[in-house]
């Protein structure tokens, strides 16, 4: 049976070394560049011929724009619109990366924890900096929950700090685990198809259903990642 983990293997395409650090161009980097290229092409081509009555192609990119704008307005408010470009690029990058990984012979870079962790860490540092720059020292009142008696504070503040520090971890593990579990499951069922002979038609149907489910997960995880980013931004911008 084919090895279901094999698909996550990182292969060096152009080996590069900077002193002792390995900075090779791998299949992961190739698909990241491919994702960015596809997004740019899609957005540039779709709004190439701007019309008041949009074509269907133009409508798709307007749909993306409106979706993110509504998300920011609902979760952060008017002040969050400054960060539209960040949230929009984040959403499209994760979404297209997830969807591109579903194609046969492609590679899913979001199924590697280091990629998602760096994304989450970047957001964590960014949100913390935004909070500190906007509110100064007052930002740290985020760790003092409202309506808690003073006697409980020595217990509550460490808990709040720990749950604040756990944000990048929960953000990254969620995306990575969902993508990796889904892709492994697809491969495991695909392995059954051949080894079961004629009864392989049953796992084949399961695989078809799972592929549809994976498309849903790809959308949902991109959505969840960006919504949580919005919520964290909201915490930083509008202190309680």
């Amino acid at each position, binding site marked *: 049976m084919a090895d279901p983990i094999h698909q996550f293997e990182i292969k060096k395409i152009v080996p590069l070394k900077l002193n002792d650090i390995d900075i090779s161009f791998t299949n992961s980097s190739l698909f990241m560049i491919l994702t960015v290229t596809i997004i740019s092409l899609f957005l540039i081509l779709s709004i190439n011929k701007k019309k008041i009555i949009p074509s269907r192609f133009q409508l798709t990119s307007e749909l993306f724009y409106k979706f993110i704008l509504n998300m920011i307005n609902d979760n952060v408010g008017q002040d969050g619109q400054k960060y539209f470009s960040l949230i929009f690029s984040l959403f499209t990058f994760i979404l297209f990366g997830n969807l591109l990984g579903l194609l046969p012979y492609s590679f899913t870079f979001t199924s590697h924890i280091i990629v998602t962790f760096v994304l989450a860490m970047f957001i964590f540092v960014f949100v913390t900096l935004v909070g500190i720059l906007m509110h100064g020292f007052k930002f740290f009142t985020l760790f003092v929950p409202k*309506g808690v008696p003073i006697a409980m504070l020595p*217990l509550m503040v*460490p*808990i*709040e700090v*720990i*749950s604040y*520090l*756990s*944000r990048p*971890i*929960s953000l990254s*593990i*969620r995306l990575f*685990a*969902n993508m990796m579990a889904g892709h492994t499951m697809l491969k495991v069922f695909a392995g059954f198809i051949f080894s079961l002979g004629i009864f392989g038609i049953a796992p084949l149907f399961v695989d078809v259903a799972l592929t549809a489910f994976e498309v849903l997960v790809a959308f*949902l995880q991109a*959505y*969840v990642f960006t*919504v*949580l980013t919005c919520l964290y931004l909201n915490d930083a911008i509008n202190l*309680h």
Partner: protein
Amino acid sequence: MNNKLKDFNKRLQGFKKKNLNKNNLKKNKNLKDINIVFKSGIELVSPVIVAVFIGIFLDNYFQSKPVFLIIFLILGFSAGIINVFRAVKRLGFEVGFKKKK
């Protein structure tokens, strides 16, 4: 003919209005519910991971092997439970506290 068309237009407008209000609210709420279900499991575990790291680091620093690990483990579990509690609060199942707005 004209009359029929007008009638049709009226019905269409009414239907659109009804559908828009209903659908939008329902969809949004469903998506948020799924969101919370996906969230809560990891939300419970990740503070524990952070707490274990902090505990081990402090123990190494102060040479006090199990003390800080135990303290932070307890804090981490509590943080996880509070996280899940807060996530569920948005669903409207909350006990005790009131909603913010």
